[in-house]
């Protein structure tokens, strides 16, 4: 019954023909997702090399690249460590209140990065610079590693680890080399790309990166050439980052066949380390969640006047919910073809396509928004411009890589053999997709939806440009108050954003926690096939 993490020496997918429908879907989706990158290239070509060179090779650029890269490396490593450790402790040990922690440590993802830095700044007004940026970003985005790692640990069959250990692997190697590696790397890429694209948090902390400078160039300078030139560097950095990840990732297979034992995993006893681990997790929750939430509550209680006219918290909340749900659904569905192709047919061109799509996460929201503006202006005579569907499309493009990573992780853990069995039993490809593949990757789809929902609910810069006139979201209202210095008025909006984030975090936790079904997510499909056949 155990077919798992055994590596087949040379898995050669090149000989398999790509399914036309899936390929067409992946190509169409990619064409849309790559619009912002195409826009950057068009802009750069229009500006010309001579001017680009002047803009790129100057002291400021070198400083910005250094600021960005050093931050990127430190935050990514820290997030990988913190996220993985937290996931392992919560999922695999007997640390007290693990179910509670499983929810609490995810919620910081929904606290917008700019709210986290706003909170830290409210409590420690003199905080700023490199280490402040490291602190805030690590606390704000480590759940991007935690979520996929925890999901892969939950779905893992204990028997596989037991076999690995019985074969002489230590606990650490069993864990990383086996189940969680794809998840850790996937999460780390997301962290890196998010750091590259982050704006609000650094703006508040006064830390200059390529992205904050791109905004300044766009905003103050009316200087699209300079901003596009810097954006290209950013995308290049993203490409290098993705390249390193590719080099580190191995070729083993992580899917398994058969039901495995649908049983509860026996948690690793922590023994005397229990109090230390407990206080470590508690400290993480306090720093990542307690500080921003505390600051929000403090500001709300303190109160204060604002010269700004009052706005409706309810309407902003409803709008944010609507956009988040729509973007989550669109991005998740759009991620399916590429995720399926890249796992099932990992040919060079397929992987290249997938990687290229990932680059979008390194493109600042403002550039995505301006590229869609440009598109509607030049090809659609301004139709769809400043409408909700276009804004949802912008979100779906921006957070598409988040959806791909989640769905891909789930697909890579669902054995292709089950699909092949289905086909061999005479079920149509379409039917196999619906009755085998989708149920297998259901949790991955839910995770993808939740991730995109969370990010959308807290997106700021593209929203500011593309929101329909008169439609405000929580993030835009928060920013309006915050940038006016009306912190007490901004606080409730930040608070609702955090509450909204708690919902998907909770749903994610629940989804995986229904015990009997948890272990049977994979086997569920196989018998259903048998019946159908």
């Amino acid at each position: 019954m155990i077919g798992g993490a055994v590596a087949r020496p040379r898995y050669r997918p090149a000989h398999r023909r790509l399914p036309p429908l899936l390929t067409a879907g992946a190509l169409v989706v990619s064409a849309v997702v790559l619009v912002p990158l195409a826009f950057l290239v068009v802009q750069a070509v229009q500006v010309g090399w001579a001017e680009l060179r002047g803009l790129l090779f100057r002291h400021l650029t070198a400083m910005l690249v250094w600021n960005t890269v050093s931050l990127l490396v430190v935050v990514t490593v820290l997030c990988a460590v913190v996220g993985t450790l937290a996931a392992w402790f919560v999922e695999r040990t007997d640390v007290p209140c693990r179910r509670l922690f499983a929810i609490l440590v995810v919620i910081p993802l929904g606290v917008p990065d700019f709210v986290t830095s706003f909170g830290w700044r409210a409590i420690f007004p003199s905080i700023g610079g490199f280490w402040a940026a490291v602190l805030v970003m690590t606390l704000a985005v480590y759940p991007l590693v935690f979520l996929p790692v925890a999901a892969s640990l939950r779905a893992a069959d204990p028997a596989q680890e037991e076999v690995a250990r019985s074969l002489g692997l230590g606990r650490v190697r069993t864990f990383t080399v086996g189940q969680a590696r794809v998840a850790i790397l996937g999460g780390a890429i997301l962290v890196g790309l998010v750091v590259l694209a982050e704006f609000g948090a650094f703006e508040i902390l006064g830390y200059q990166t390529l992205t904050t400078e791109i905004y300044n160039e766009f905003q103050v300078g009316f200087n699209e050439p300079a901003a596009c030139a810097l954006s290209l560097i950013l995308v290049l950095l993203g490409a290098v980052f993705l390249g390193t990840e590719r080099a580190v990732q191995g070729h083993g297979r992580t899917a398994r066949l058969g039901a495995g034992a649908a049983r509860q995993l026996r948690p690793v006893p922590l023994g005397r380390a229990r109090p230390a681990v407990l206080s470590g997790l508690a400290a993480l929750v306090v720093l990542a969640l307690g500080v921003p939430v505390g600051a929000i509550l403090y500001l709300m209680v303190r109160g204060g006047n604002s010269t700004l006219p009052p706005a409706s918290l309810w309407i902003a909340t409803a709008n944010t919910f609507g956009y988040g749900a729509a973007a989550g659904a669109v991005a998740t569905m759009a991620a399916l073809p590429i995720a399926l192709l890249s796992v099932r047919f990992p040919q060079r061109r397929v992987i290249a396509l997938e990687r290229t799509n990932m680059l979008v996460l390194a493109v600042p929201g403002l550039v995505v928004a301006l590229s869609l503006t440009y598109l509607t202006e030049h090809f659609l005579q301004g139709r769809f411009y400043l409408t909700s569907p276009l804004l949802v499309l912008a979100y779906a493009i921006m957070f598409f890589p988040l959806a791909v990573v989640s769905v891909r992780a789930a697909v890579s853990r669902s054995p292709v053999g089950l699909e092949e069995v289905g086909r061999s039993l005479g079920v149509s490809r379409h039917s196999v997709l619906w009755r085998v593949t989708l149920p297998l990757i259901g949790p991955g789809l839910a995770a993808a939806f939740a991730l995109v929902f969370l990010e959308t609910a807290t997106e700021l810069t593209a929203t500011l440009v593309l929101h329909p006139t008169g439609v405000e979201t929580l993030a835009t209202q928060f920013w309006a108050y915050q940038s006016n210095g009306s912190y007490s008025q901004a606080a409730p909006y930040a608070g609702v954003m955090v509450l909204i984030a708690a919902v998907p975090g909770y749903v994610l936790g629940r989804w995986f926690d229904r015990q009997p079904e948890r272990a049977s997510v994979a086997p569920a499909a196989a018998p259903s096939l048998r019946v159908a056949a």
Partner: protein
Amino acid sequence: MRPTRWRSGSRAPRRALLVAALAAVVLPLAGCAQGGATSSTGLTVYSGQHVQTTQALVAAFERESGISVSLRSEDEDVLADQIVTEGSHSPADVFYTENSPPLQYLASKGMLAPVDRATLANTPSRFNSPDGQWVGVSARVSVLVYNTLLLSRNEVPTSAMQLADPKWSGRIAISGSETDFQPIVTSVARTYGEQAALRWLESVKANAGSHDYPSSETVTSQVNSGQVALGIVNQYYWYRMRAEVGAAATHSAIAYFAPHDVGYVLDVSGAGILRSSTHQKAAQRFLAFLTSTAGQEIIAHSDSFEYPIASGVTTAQPETPFHQLQPNDISIEELGTGAEAIKLLQEAQLL
């Protein structure tokens, strides 16, 4: 194994997932649809002005004219850029800004339509577009704001040039990326030349150090809370902050530069009509309203603490009366599109 149970167990969540996904897509789009379609009948105003000013103005205009207005508020530089990108299909009918350079920028690209003469006549001509492309609506001046616990009035510099003195190292705050800062840079360059302006900027940047903040609001509140002794802002930021935190929590004050100092710049807020607008008549009416007595009275009493400049209306707020201000004589043309200031700011690595 019990196949039947597995089967039903796997079907239900799948269908639920599909229904949930569909609902998630369809409902919000349907819900947002009415918000999405921007008015084909009413007026769309892109405003870089503070909401405190614009909302009251728009509400009064809607009552008076019966024309509905959609207001899009953002930083003026973002909106200017957006309008250029939107080109001939821009939904904007009117562009209302905090400073003159964004309007001059659009005018230089030929994107503004001439303003009615009667409207231009409401405002003294030195506050209008030199060639009638937009009309001046309100004004304010650049000042120093200082923390009264850290500095006494006579320690505060009287000229912007003194801010380059190393004795202010770590003690002054600026907002190098704010559009409000550019007119001062332009003014220094006009008086002392580009090279001197660049050296001045570099010294100011060095003195500011980590106190280069993203907005004038931040500069004001950081000075007030004692994080830094001195900051350069427009006068109304301080009045607004005081209205918000209350007199008891105000530990700062305004210091004007010496009369006609190079840093003592008067900034004009104005409004123009997009050439691409399909509501030219309604847009002209809106501009006429902004500069009318009724419109100016709203500005005079609003919490934005700007100076009304048209139709002879004077401010009702507790500020230094407009006629007592003694700014330098830099003109709208000399302030230009801000391109020279931006170039200098970039060379000083502030942008």
